[in-house]
């Protein structure tokens, strides 16, 4: 990518960041804040999914690691009195740690078979949350999860505005990290594996190690997202992290566009926004999502990023 584009991108991101930062001054209603938080969280977790997808593995059990982060963070802060920021970090780390052995076993499998297997694995983990009542609270879940603490003042979060800034702060970090990885040599390695793993092995790359690295990093991000979710909703249960949750993230990334980094952001924003617009037609929302997904797959497989690039080209002519 040439430097002119990089600079443009940087300016664009800074403007966007500024807008996000000052938005609550103009729109302080809870509804707006909730929507933005929902979008930001979805973007964060989808970025984690994208990282894993860069090596060519479609993870249909992504929500399970989100759940792991959520439960670890919730339980350690609730039962062990860990400060929330530490619990969240722990949640992400445990997700990454558990992802490693799982990755070593399952990442040997490629493509569609891995997708099926990851779906099964996501279910197993969700069932473990449901069954292991002693630890995870079973089907009724964990409630009374402590809210995060505002730095310096020491008071717990008392309004949506606090959560707003926290999620965008986290999103900012994750955005930078994933963007950085993707444009670095490491990201090139990920892509090389997804494009031609035989050749990549021949040039001396240990494919399994690199795939596991991407899997762990992506699961860490999912764990952080899950932890945030836990301390935001203050209540979690196994059904929050089902196959359907994972499928939603797949939906986001596909509609946004799998070939482009910004697809991981466009997808969630577009779909959650759309869902919000149609909130009065509650039952029709999944129907619309399904149609959008199929339309994208059939007519613009590059997703919304491809679509917007085409529109941009047409306009600038």
């Amino acid at each position: 990518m040439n430097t002119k584009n990089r600079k443009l991108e940087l300016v664009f991101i800074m403007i966007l960041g500024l807008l996000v930062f000052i938005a609550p001054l103009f729109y302080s209603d809870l509804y707006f804040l909730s929507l933005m938080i929902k979008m930001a969280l979805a973007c964060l977790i989808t970025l984690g999914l994208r990282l894993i997808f860069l090596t060519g593995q479609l993870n249909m059990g992504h929500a399970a690691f989100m759940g792991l982060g959520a439960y670890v963070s919730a339980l350690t802060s609730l039962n062990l009195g860990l400060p929330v920021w530490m619990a969240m970090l722990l949640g992400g780390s445990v997700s990454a740690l558990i992802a490693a052995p799982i990755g070593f076993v399952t990442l040997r499998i490629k493509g569609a078979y891995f997708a099926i297997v990851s779906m099964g694995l996501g279910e197993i983990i969700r069932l473990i949350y449901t069954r292991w009542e002693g630890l995870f609270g079973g089907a009724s879940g964990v409630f009374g999860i402590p809210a995060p603490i505002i730095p310096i003042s020491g008071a717990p979060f008392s309004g949506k505005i606090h959560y707003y800034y926290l999620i965008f702060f986290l999103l900012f970090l994750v955005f930078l990290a994933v963007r950085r990885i993707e444009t670095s040599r490491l990201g090139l390695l990920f892509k090389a594996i997804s494009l031609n793993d035989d050749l990549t092995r021949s040039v001396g790359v240990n494919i399994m190690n690199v795939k596991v690295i991407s899997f762990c990093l992506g699961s860490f991000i999912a764990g952080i997202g899950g932890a945030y979710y836990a301390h935001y909703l203050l209540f979690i249960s196994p059904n929050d992290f089902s196959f359907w949750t994972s499928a939603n993230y797949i939906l986001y990334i596909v509609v946004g566009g799998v070939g482009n980094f910004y697809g991981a952001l466009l997808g969630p924003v577009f779909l959650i926004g759309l869902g919000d617009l149609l909130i009065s037609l509650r039952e029709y929302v999944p129907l619309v999502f399904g149609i959008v997904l199929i339309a994208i797959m059939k007519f613009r497989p590059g997703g919304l990023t491809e679509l917007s690039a085409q529109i941009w080209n047409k306009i600038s002519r």
Partner: protein
Amino acid sequence: MSQGQLFVQVILNGIMSGMILMLVVLGLTLVFGILHIVNFAHGEIYMLGAYVFWLLFGKNIISIPGPPVIHYILALIVTMIIIAAFGVLIERLFFKSFRGNLLPSMIISLGIILILQAGALIVFGIQERSVKSVFSGTLNLGGTYLSAERVAVIMAGVTLFVAVYLFIQRTFTGRAMKAVAQDADAAALQGINIDRICSLGMAIGCALAAAAGALLAPIFTINPYIGGEPLLLGFAAIIVGGLGSIPGSIVGSLLIGLVQSFGSTFLDSEAAMIIVFGLLVVMLVLKPTGLWGHEH
């Protein structure tokens, strides 16, 4: 009920679950083998089969003279035909351009799940529906009592399975399907109409799933979300038995049906599922392609 009786009931339930699962899995395997796509919406086809059967038989929107058993069988057959046609429609509209592309077909099928589930919710509502059973009472088999309904389901399942098996092995069209599954290009060169065979494969696959849903309709209640479990269990059976393998499908389905039955009865349903999926993990570690599977 005595310990022995309980045991027999559990095995019977397990075989029945396994049988139903086998129909679902056979359908999935057929579609995968012939069209080389993965259809996650297969569970929703099962669900639609249950609803259509309910419309035809439970709600009696078309009244057919004669004993209830005839009505039952006719409703079953008509359900299968309707859903088979529906499946062909879906195949032509959505899957045709993705034949052979596993991942994209999966993603598209996710979209189809959303549409079908939401559609069912809108059209039929969230209330649980039920269908009265035609076969009441129990059969006495050498001292043990077996639910007539469950026996009927098993027999129907076996009949369908054998029918499809014979069709594939003995008829010209069936062998054409095998040819397309093995090598579509070579089959096309031999003059086989690939589109028609693919549609037929989809039709049969969906008919089987619909039959599974319809057969279970009198036993369990119907709601728009019943497609989820057969899908997950079906894939578990496929992972254990091996994708694309028919003997694997049989063994995998029966195994999972029995484990589920025993688990649910002697432990609880979640523990049963954990064991099922635990089997999956063991299989993945030892032989990722399943008992009968082969690497593609």
